[in-house]
């Protein structure tokens, strides 16, 4: 099969395959699609930028204001379980012992709960105690903030914060702490 024969076969095959007709205003369709894609690209890019800014801001915020450690909640220590010794007592005694133990434990917990609720009721009944506790807490927060500033080596701001604690909460124990730390900052400055 020579080159001309291949050409002729290909041309006939091409001519007999009818090209599907395209209609419509193609130029306008192209323009519309282009506008739509530009808009979509802009939206995706905007979203990506916003996401990146959000991630960076979160990281920065975490670095600037680290979370305090979670408060440690006292819990019953888990006792390592030793294998039951059944050589000295029979099973009946063991079951009775376990029931007694569980009853005593429940009684102790109930007494503890009762004592706690009584303490809460007492403090609620005494508004002065409530105010004192609130003042103490505010003083503690203020000292803690000042400590944070010291850790970040912003001594002037820390001294100001300690002075404010002393001025606002002079009767609390945290005012004494603030005095002590303020003195140490001033000593540092002098030294």
């Amino acid at each position, binding site marked *: *099969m020579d*080159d001309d*024969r*291949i*050409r002729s*076969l*290909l*041309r*006939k*095959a*091409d*001519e*007999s*395959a009818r*090209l*599907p007709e*395209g209609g419509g205003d*193609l*130029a306008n*369709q*192209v*323009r519309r*699609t*282009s506008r739509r*894609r530009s808009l979509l690209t802009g939206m995706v890019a905007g979203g990506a930028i916003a996401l990146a800014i959000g991630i960076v801001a979160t990281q920065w915020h975490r670095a600037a204001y680290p979370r305090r450690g979670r408060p440690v909640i006292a819990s019953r220590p888990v006792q390592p379980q030793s294998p039951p010794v059944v050589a000295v007592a029979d099973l009946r005694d063991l079951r009775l012992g376990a029931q007694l133990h569980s009853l005593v434990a429940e009684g102790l917990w109930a007494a503890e709960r009762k004592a706690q609720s009584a303490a809460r009721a007492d403090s609620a009944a005494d508004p002065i105690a409530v105010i004192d506790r609130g003042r103490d807490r505010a003083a503690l927060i203020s000292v803690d903030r000042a400590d944070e500033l010291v850790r970040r080596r912003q001594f002037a701001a820390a001294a100001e914060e300690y002075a404010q604690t002393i001025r606002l909460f002079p009767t609390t124990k945290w005012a004494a702490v603030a005095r002590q730390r303020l003195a140490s900052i001033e000593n540092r400055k002098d030294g």
Partner: protein
Amino acid sequence: MSVPPTTIASEGGIVLHDAEKDLLRRLQAGEPAAFDELVADNRQRIARLVYRLLGWCGEVEDLVQDVLLVAYRKVGRFRGQSSLSTWLIGIAINRCRSYRRRWMPSWRWLERLWRRRPPAPGPDRALMEDETAARVRKAVQELGESDREAIVLYYLEDLPAARIGQLLGISAGAVDMRLHRARRRLREKLADLGKE
């Protein structure tokens, strides 16, 4: 394609004629009428080329729109290193490659289904011609992508090997080699059609 009498050499030494250079300038200026003109002048040609490159099947109209969309968005970056039609052919080849890579497996599956149908023999000459044409098209479809591109551009688009090489980013020698390989495969498949 005849070259118009007035020609201007562009920066890269490539020849662009006046009208084409003017159209390119208007396209880059964002003139809507210029794009309408480009579409009107090239739509049919691109459609035919895409149809051939896809093996006479596929979503031609979508691909033509895709080619023109790429041209519309990238015309600002076109520096006139080739004629506008050559540039569009290049875009069409690339779009067809991406399209085929995405869709060919399903086409092959459909082809397999189609092949199960019993052939419809008939003494009628027109029917026989149809059958021959279908066999030729199938033989071309079964060629590798690069060989099919060479065959379509050389025999059906009538482009010389050097220009095909330019479009495909290969040397003229490499184009000749692809054509040689494609011809050999077509001869093997269509051996019985050697004589009219």
